């Protein structure tokens, strides 16, 4: 019988810090991503002693990040006014102009497409794991990702060519 050893939580933070931040930015945008990151790691640290030692830590963190990010988004929408449809002025120092440009298009994707893209392409999770997190089949997750990518590519290309002719 092998006794599973649990790593100090610091190791979890060091290994997955950047990935979780990228996922948060893709789901809630540059302004709220820091809050989503903090809430994710705080909730994860609280629950860490009960996490089975053989759990897939990254998928677990991404699941928590997903919940926290969606909560933040919904809270944000409740506060939002019609003026909010304008491109967002990011207040955080992370939000350089180009980040808000990309986010402008990313935030218009359906929530599920945005999540699947973040989990697969930014966190590197296989579609089977994503299906477990979001429900549905891995084929559906794959389709959501490719639909989202297609839309995004079209928008980003249009935005790019507008810039060229300006």
């Amino acid at each position: 019988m092998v006794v599973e050893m649990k790593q100090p939580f610091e190791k979890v933070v060091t290994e997955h810090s950047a990935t979780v931040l990228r996922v948060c930015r893709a789901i809630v945008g540059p302004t709220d991503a820091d809050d989503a990151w903090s809430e994710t790691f705080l909730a994860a640290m609280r629950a860490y002693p009960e996490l089975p030692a053989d759990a897939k830590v990254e998928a677990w963190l991404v699941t928590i990040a997903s919940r926290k990010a969606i909560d933040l988004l919904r809270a944000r929408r409740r506060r939002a006014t019609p003026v909010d449809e304008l491109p967002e002025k990011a207040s955080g120092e992370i939000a350089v102009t180009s980040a808000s440009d990309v986010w402008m298009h990313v935030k218009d994707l359906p929530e599920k497409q945005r999540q699947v893209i973040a989990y697969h392409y930014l966190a590197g999770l296989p579609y089977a794991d994503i299906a477990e997190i979001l429900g549905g089949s891995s084929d559906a997750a794959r389709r959501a990702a490719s639909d989202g990518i297609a839309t995004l590519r079209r928008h980003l290309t249009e935005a790019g060519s507008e810039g060229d002719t300006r």
Partner: protein
Amino acid sequence: MSANTGEPNVPAMFAPLTTIGPGVLEKLHVALEDAAGREGILDVAYRTIDTPVGTLLLAATERGLVRVAYDSEDHDVVLEGLATTLSPRILHAPRRLDTVAREIDEYFARRRTGFDVPLDFSLTTSFRRSVLEHLPQIAYGHTQSYADVARTVGNPKAARAVGSACATNPLPVVIPCHRVLRGDGTLGGYVGGPAAKTALLDLETAAA
């Protein structure tokens, strides 16, 4: 789809949004240390400190300093041990160790002869604890034999047990097990190795 197109290069597409600037993760980490501390879930905080006897690992619970470890003990292994025996909720969070780090600096600069930070004896047994609690009473710059210490803690036949209490001292330097020598005056063992024990004794002799 042809084989060479593969998956779209999405990370590149997202790069402006997902590129993480310098210092961003460090700032988030500090905020996490603070929030975890406030919420009472930072069970073990640690940092390292450079000293003349090498890099020391310092770890503290909410109750006090719980572990000081020499390089030779392998800090990663020590932290894994703390995760198993105390709690895996461990963060590199230097602030909780500020006072003890300053006192250790002063000790090595010969501006301090004793430590007055709260200690957490969770990592030792009750007999060993009674030995360890006695050791700070051996004056700075002085030594006692294992048998002397055994007599003082009321168990004259326990010299060997005193030896193992010293050998397993979770708080070396701060709990001065380096001041305990063999009955014949020779060095005896030390968790940080004989060179570190000699260095500490020399430091105290030179200052005293």
